[in-house]
């Protein structure tokens, strides 16, 4: 890879921007920058509407609410209210694992939709929704509640899902939660997270008749914003329990509505994905006086740092517990690093992911001796970029809401050894001959969190990067021509 200096990186950005029309150029310029650890405030512009005409990688508010925050609450049924496509094409793609019997008491990978047709748009879909809700109750009597996730048409035709939800909720004696997360709201899935958080605040915490489940204890914590991708939350949870904490609720990853209802009684909220769950954490901090702490469970350095940070909120027994856990896994981690570091050292990575990984996984790569040379968020905000600056090296690329074109050009010039991004980018870069890991759903692998996760992470990176297939990118007939040319030269 070419190690670019600050000036070269600046020139690269300019060059890439060249193709845009004047106005678009001006707009996109604000979203691209070079990391400078010294400058603390002025960073890239973020959380703005994507430019019409470019290929953006973002999702919609419905995706943020149904897919991210609500979807993984396993014992509830989440209705994709509107046409069938939004829910069906995103069904079960995130790989948030859960335990339970699908279709009986857990519904995580199923798609429920009101399947809007023309007549529902013309005459309104409220009747259909209430019929659907009673059908759900008959067919799946063990569900613990329903959430109605609005797709675009609901807001456009002005259906009153709140009234229907209220009536049905009284009828079946279970919560029915209307969520106004129509896809056209906001600029990305980020607003969907916010809307979903607000719905939890209004309809879950405040619900009458919410069950009194667990006796509160002095070491109760809740895991927020760990989506249990490939089992992430499980490999995190065991560490927390080992150090003496009691994890009473796991939110959107193998979570249940009872666990959410219980959360206002915990002592500390542990926030993994800050972007999607900070809203509800702030609310709980103000209303119930529960502090929250951001942590990072990618790679042994950050895990140890985070365990100590979490422990600092508790008494000495927990602090000792944290040290015990760190010491226990030390040898295992040393072995993993000894095995994979020599194979991965010095390799450069470019990332472009969602809410927390553009900064969180940097530590894990560094533990393996790799370097992150470019990173960006699909839907990050200013506060995310502020948090990123200190984790990144100087003169590295930062790109917000990168367009398909920009990303390809950056890769061609920066020539990273590995790219970590989503499935839409995967095949483009693989065809360009660059090793690629899907960093949203761990490329059908995982977990990557915690100590056990790091071992898998290291193995996966090695498997991808050092795969012999990358040597065979040039077909044999062209390879021989190249060799001849070299021989002549």
């Amino acid at each position: 890879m070419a190690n670019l200096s600050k000036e070269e990186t600046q020139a690269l950005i300019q060059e890439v921007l060249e193709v845009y029309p004047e106005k678009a150029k001006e707009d996109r310029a604000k979203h691209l920058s070079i990391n400078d650890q010294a400058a603390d405030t002025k960073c890239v512009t973020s959380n703005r509407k994507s430019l019409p005409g470019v290929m953006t990688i973002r999702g919609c508010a419905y995706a943020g609410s149904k897919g991210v925050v609500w979807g993984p609450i396993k014992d509830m049924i989440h209705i994709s209210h509107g046409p069938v496509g939004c829910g069906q094409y995103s069904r079960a793609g995130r790989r948030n694992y859960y335990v339970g019997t699908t279709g009986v008491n857990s519904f995580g990978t199923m798609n429920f939709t009101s399947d809007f047709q023309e007549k529902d748009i013309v005459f309104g879909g409220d009747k259909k929704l209430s019929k659907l809700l009673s059908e759900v109750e008959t067919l799946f009597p063990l569900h613990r509640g329903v959430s109605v996730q609005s797709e675009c048409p609901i807001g456009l035709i002005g259906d009153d899902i709140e009234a229907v939800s209220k009536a049905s909720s009284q009828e079946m004696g279970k919560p029915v939660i209307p969520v106004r997360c129509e896809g056209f709201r906001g600029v990305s899935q980020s607003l969907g997270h916010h809307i979903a958080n607000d719905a939890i605040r209004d309809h879950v915490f405040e619900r009458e008749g919410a069950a009194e489940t667990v006796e509160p204890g002095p070491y109760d914590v809740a895991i927020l914003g760990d989506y249990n991708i490939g089992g992430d939350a499980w490999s995190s949870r065991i560490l927390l329990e080992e150090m003496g904490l009691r994890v009473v609720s796991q939110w959107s990853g193998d979570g249940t509505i009872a666990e959410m209802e219980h959360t206002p009684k915990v002592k500390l909220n542990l926030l993994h994905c800050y972007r999607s769950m900070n809203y509800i954490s702030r609310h709980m901090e103000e209303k119930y006086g529960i502090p929250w702490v951001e942590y990072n469970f990618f790679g042994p350095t950050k895990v140890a740092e985070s365990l100590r940070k979490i422990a600092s909120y508790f008494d000495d027994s927990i602090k000792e517990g944290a040290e015990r856990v760190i010491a226990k896994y030390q040898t295992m981690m040393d072995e993993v690093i000894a095995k994979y570091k020599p194979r991965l050292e010095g390799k450069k990575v470019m990332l472009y992911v969602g809410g927390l990984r553009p900064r969180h996984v940097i530590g894990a790569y560094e533990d393996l001796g790799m370097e992150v040379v470019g990173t960006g968020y699909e839907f990050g905000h200013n506060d995310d970029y502020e948090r990123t600056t200190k984790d990144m090296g100087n003169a590295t690329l930062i790109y917000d809401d990168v367009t398909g074109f920009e990303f390809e050009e950056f890769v061609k010039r920066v020539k990273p050894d590995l790219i970590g991004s989503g499935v839409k980018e995967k095949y483009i870069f693989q065809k360009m001959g660059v090793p690629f890991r899907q960093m949203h759903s761990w490329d059908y692998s995982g977990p990557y969190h915690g100590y056990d996760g790091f071992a898998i992470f290291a193995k996966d990176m090695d498997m991808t990067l050092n795969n012999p297939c990358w040597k065979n990118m040039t077909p044999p007939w062209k390879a021989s021509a190249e060799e001849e040319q070299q021989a002549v030269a």
Partner: protein
Amino acid sequence: MANIIISKAEDGGLTFYMPKKDLEVKVISLEFEAADKWGGELKLASGQSYYIDPMAAPSLPKSLRARRLD
């Protein structure tokens, strides 16, 4: 008038958060910080300033109404 939340930052300072805009910024200075008189002009790291009606110092974080000054 906008709804905002003021909370304690990790470094001991204050953070300004505006849910509507999803904006989190550091507070550089607050006019009054006494126990019985708290509030007034609020200067943000982003360069903007807001005004909150002075009150007895609340326990943080706290949702407040603020007026934009510039």
